[in-house]
């Protein structure tokens, strides 16, 4: 057997080293990111952790796309500033279509048509919208997380119109940082929905019904009577956080996000139509809310993220509006029921939280108005006139047609 010559051995070693380096570089390349996408949303704390763990990390692992998440509690302000500065995130998740419609009209949003099947969502969740300067109708947002409202949480005896009439029974908190006042707008909207029905509600939400209309005024007055507007406890509600502890024999008008709190206290919920006085024949519709994903920079990575969020495999936070998604088997009976209502499986009418469908300025003024009404109910007429001045007519699908 011939001995290996030193030169041959050297060449062989060099080849082996090069091969090793190639394999190493290839492995590093395969493990590295193939792009990135910036995502702006308002989830923070535990909610953010869960979203990152259940949605972002699986997406990153599957597509090797780095998601740079920005959780902001001043979402509207940050996004508005980003837009003006020409430096928006690739994808943003905002609550409510009102603000998004304004961005779509300004040509800031990219259509999502072709990225997911809008047929899997009710028209209120992912509507086709006409925007000046763009041909045809396009879908501009995708629901990522939805919530049910029109709920009155209680523990103990099931509340009725009569037993709920005592203002002392109600837990009421208006404080919520930048958006303080929204729990009050939810109240007024829901009462209007139960008293006047979905058609009047949709017309009002779209700016087609005056704020000074008797039905709207009646909703405000009903709320004032229920919670004792002008009284000391209503004044205290201004500085009470919306998520503060509420249990015992008390009642709380809050959305499905409070299910955990009330279930832990052995509580349950009734539809708000069961406690709102003077409900109309169309009472029983559910007010709903949702966080909607929009595409601002149409990069391939951002499109991929939208496709992923719309897919049935994404473990989205409670509750998905995707009718094709299988129900979460880990949910308890209450959560399943809420999910079914949100996906339209119970064939009940669902209407968007009206303030979320209004333009931003209108929504902010509405929130301010409920704060003032709580401590100064006599100012209602003047406030309704002021709100009417800001009203703008638009055409968004607010209620489902089941």
């Amino acid at each position: 057997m011939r001995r290996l010559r030193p030169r041959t051995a050297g060449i062989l070693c060099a080849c082996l080293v090069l091969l090793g380096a190639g394999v190493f570089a290839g492995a590093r390349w395969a493990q590295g990111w193939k792009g990135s996408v910036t995502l702006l949303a308002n989830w923070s704390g535990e909610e953010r952790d869960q979203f990152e763990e259940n949605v972002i990390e699986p997406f990153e692992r599957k597509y090797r796309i780095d998601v740079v998440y920005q959780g902001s509690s001043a979402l509207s302000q940050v996004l508005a500033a980003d837009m003006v500065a020409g430096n928006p995130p690739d994808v943003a998740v905002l609550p409510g279509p009102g603000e998004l419609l304004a961005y779509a009209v300004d040509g800031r949003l990219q259509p999502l048509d072709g990225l997911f099947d809008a047929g899997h969502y009710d028209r209120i969740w992912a509507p086709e919208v006409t925007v000046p300067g763009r041909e045809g109708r396009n879908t501009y947002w995708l629901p990522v997380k939805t919530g049910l409202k029109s709920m009155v949480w209680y523990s103990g005896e099931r509340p009725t119109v009569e037993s709920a009439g005592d203002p002392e029974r109600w837990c009421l908190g208006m404080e919520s940082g930048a958006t303080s006042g929204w729990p009050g707008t939810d109240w007024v909207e829901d009462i209007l929905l139960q008293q006047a029905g979905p058609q009047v509600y949709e017309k009002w939400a779209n700016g087609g019904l005056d704020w000074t209309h008797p039905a709207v005024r009646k909703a405000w007055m009903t709320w004032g009577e229920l919670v004792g507007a002008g009284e000391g406890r209503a004044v205290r509600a201004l500085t009470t956080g919306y998520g503060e502890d509420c249990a015992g024999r008390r009642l709380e008008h809050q959305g499905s996000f409070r299910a955990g709190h009330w279930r832990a206290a052995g509580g349950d919920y009734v539809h708000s139509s069961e406690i709102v006085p003077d409900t109309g024949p169309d009472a029983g519709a559910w007010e709903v809310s949702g966080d909607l994903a929009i595409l601002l920079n149409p990069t391939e990575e951002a499109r991929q993220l939208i496709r992923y969020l719309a897919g049935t495999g994404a473990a989205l936070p409670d509750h998905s509006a995707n009718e094709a998604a299988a129900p979460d088997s880990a949910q308890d009976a209450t959560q399943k029921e809420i999910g079914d209502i949100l996906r339209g499986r119970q064939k009940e009418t669902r209407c968007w939280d009206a303030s979320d469908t209004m333009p931003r300025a209108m929504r902010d003024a509405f929130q301010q108005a409920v704060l003032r009404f709580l401590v100064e109910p006599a100012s209602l007429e003047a406030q309704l006139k002021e709100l009417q001045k800001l009203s703008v007519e638009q055409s968004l699908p607010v209620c489902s047609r089941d």
Partner: protein
Amino acid sequence: MSTTGRELTRRLRLLLTLGAATTLVLFFAYRGVHDDTVPLSSSSTPGILAVDTARNALATAHRIVGDSGPEGDMSDEFHTQVSVAHQSLALTASENVIGVEGRHDLQTITGLIAVYSGWVERWGREDHQALSTAYLHYAERVLGLESEPGTDGDVMSRLDALRDKQLDVAERQAAFPWQLWLGWSAVAVLYLALLLALLDTQRFLRRRFRRPVQVRLLAATAVCGLGVPVLGRITWTAQRAMSGSLDGIRVREKDPDGIPKTADQVQSALADAGFWASLSGWVLLGGAVAMALTVWGLWPRITEYRWRAPR
């Protein structure tokens, strides 16, 4: 070739190998420390101090609001302090050392400051006592002067989180990890070996050629013998300055007057950081000069002993 010729060639190869290895290892070890001195002094530290300035300015602004009462005129000084906060955040943005995430944090903080200012302005305009109390309460909640640890929805906790991230970067820059220990240990070993080899070669030449000293080889010895300790000393000084600067900014400066003092201390401690960092290029040049002197010193002797094949 004679034994002397082979010995000279062997020594030349050894010296060149040691010289090249020392130069390269010294170059990377030196860069390992000094590449971070300039970013630490010109970006990380000013960024952290700017966040502290913004925090103090906002706390002062809110103190002005509290002191003035609803009927007091607080607008000028309040707006001045909010403006200071915005300018400081702009400086933080320009010195952003934590990339996209940091930029997003700053955008959120700026948005929250706008919300805070909005509530304060409403408070200033409101005549109804209960509403003005509520607006001030909302402003305080958004500002988060008394927020609990772990919250992230207010200005102060966001600023604290941003500062923590910046400090992590500064600590990485000022660190002397095991890789640098290994590098500088290798420099020390190679330096001693090279110096001993040069001195031994000098001794060999003196004995063999009866010349008191080989000047070119002596010059190469001087370049190595002085250059490496000088660079080591500079590195040690820089590392101490970085550690000292980090100690100065590790704890948040609560006294607004203390921030310029800390900035001055850091500035003076790392005033020569740019010069120190620029010397890394001279490491390669110095190494090349030392090796050239070595070749220049030994090559004429080697050629004298070179075996020539018959024609």
